[in-house]
């Protein structure tokens, strides 16, 4: 039982980190029809700027704030300079965002140095709780809680506010949203910046979880993000959460019980979904 709980908590924590990356990705694809392969770059820039702020200020919270700010600023610049010229052209989007991903990754090495940087969990989140024979690591619970809070806040915004309604309507029919008098470009920018901020939060939370940060971590995690988007259904926020948890749990259990399959499990999950439900588990229906 204690093993089961540990594996579940581990899987949920990993799932939440993937969710933070995938949530932005799915909204950006669903609403803007943009394949953003540089999303992992926002994750790693969030991690680095947040961690350096954390090291300087010794405040993890300030680090998270700076990561969010970095994500939003980079998101703004990316949407204006990189994405806007390639709206509607998937091939160009893939090429330019992949290229920009490499630029972001290499810029990390230029600005922060090429070596991995160790990151410790803040004191108040370090350690664990012991419940009988079960050891629960505090930081993993923190990640799970933050993940659910982020999901709750965004789910509320998407389902109970006018801007959320517009975003959902835009995912279904952009042309009609414009014909109703709504400036879809502003909505695109808002969604892109929000998605970027979510990725940056994910990067910052990932840092103490993995114990170190390095320039390539964005690319590695972005692949998981794409797998989650495919499984959850492009454009579906709730689908991303469920798929991320599924991927996190599958990875956690496989790593323990069938270690040689742990790296392949995500691909197997994605292949199964693509065969039996190619639109993903929860794709938001277009009009």
């Amino acid at each position: 039982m204690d093993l089961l709980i540990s594996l579940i908590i581990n899987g949920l924590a990993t799932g939440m980190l993937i969710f933070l990356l995938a949530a932005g990705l799915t909204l950006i694809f669903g609403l803007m029809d943009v394949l953003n392969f540089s999303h992992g770059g926002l994750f790693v820039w969030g991690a680095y700027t947040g961690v350096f702020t954390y090291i300087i200020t010794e405040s993890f919270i300030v680090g998270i704030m700076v990561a969010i700010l970095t994500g939003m600023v980079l998101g703004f610049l990316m949407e204006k300079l990189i994405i806007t010229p390639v709206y509607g052209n998937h091939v160009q989007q893939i090429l330019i965002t992949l290229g920009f991903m490499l630029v972001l990754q290499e810029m990390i090495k230029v600005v922060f140095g090429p070596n991995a940087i160790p990151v410790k969990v803040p004191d108040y989140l370090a350690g664990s709780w012991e419940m009988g024979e079960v050891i629960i690591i505090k930081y993993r619970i923190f990640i799970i809680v933050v993940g659910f809070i982020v999901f709750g806040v965004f789910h509320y915004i998407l389902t109970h506010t006018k801007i959320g309604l517009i975003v959902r309507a835009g995912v279904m029919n952009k042309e009609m949203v414009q014909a109703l008098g709504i400036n879809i470009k502003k909505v695109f920018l808002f969604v892109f910046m929000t998605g970027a901020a979510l990725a940056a939060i994910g990067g910052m939370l990932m840092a103490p979880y993995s114990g170190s940060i390095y320039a390539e971590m964005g690319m590695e995690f972005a692949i998981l993000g794409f797998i989650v988007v495919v499984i959850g259904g492009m454009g579906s926020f709730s689908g991303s959460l469920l798929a991320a948890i599924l991927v996190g749990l599958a990875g956690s259990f496989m790593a323990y019980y069938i270690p040689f399959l742990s790296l392949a499990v995500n691909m197997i999950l994605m292949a199964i979904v693509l065969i039996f439900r190619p639109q993903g588990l929860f794709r938001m229906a277009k009009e």
Partner: protein
Amino acid sequence: MMESLLKLHNIQTHIGQFHILQGIQFEARVGEVSVLLGRNGAGKTTTLKTIMGLTPASSGSITFLNEEISKKPTYEIANTGIGYVPEDQGIFAQLTVEENIKVAMRKETSEAFERQEYVLTLFPDLKKFWKKAGGNLSGGQKQMLAMARAFVNDSKLLLIDEPSKGLAPIVVEKVMEAIMEMKKRTTIVLVEQNFFMASRIGDTFTLIDDGRTVHTGAMNELISDDAMKHKYLGIG
């Protein structure tokens, strides 16, 4: 003569390499229903899309309330006071009827809610299915929702594209009655293949053929001109 609200002059529109509109001109006057008629593929739907900026005009002018709107983006055109009901209705399938109307409502003012109540009296089915997803409505209900959504703002002009398309005759009758009611409050430009419906509710007509305006005039003129109906509409 009533005041001109919308005026198109020598509109040319290209979609990709195709030259779709090659000289559209007509005028919609305040309080009238202006009907665009023509065979399939004549350019009627593209004309409405061009007015909305969805397929922007390559040249020519579109003035609405004496302001040139042909270079404006779609959302600004809508905000000048033009409501649009597309041919495919453009319903947000996963949003409820209530949410579809809420997205459309630009300002949640008492006047907007008064208009909402008014359209719900025109289309009582919408009230009945208020919490139902738009995608689950029947074709007729979707048409009513699309019209309600366009009307919920203080639109001075409504562009309605083929409201009778694919609907049962009894539903067409309801839609037609609703348009007659709406006419009391706003100006309408209507694209319609159903000549019976068009002739009953239209005040003026514009005949479009191969992307060009070939005739405009009072609807009564067209009703009595069998040769013209036969030549351009294949009826009579």
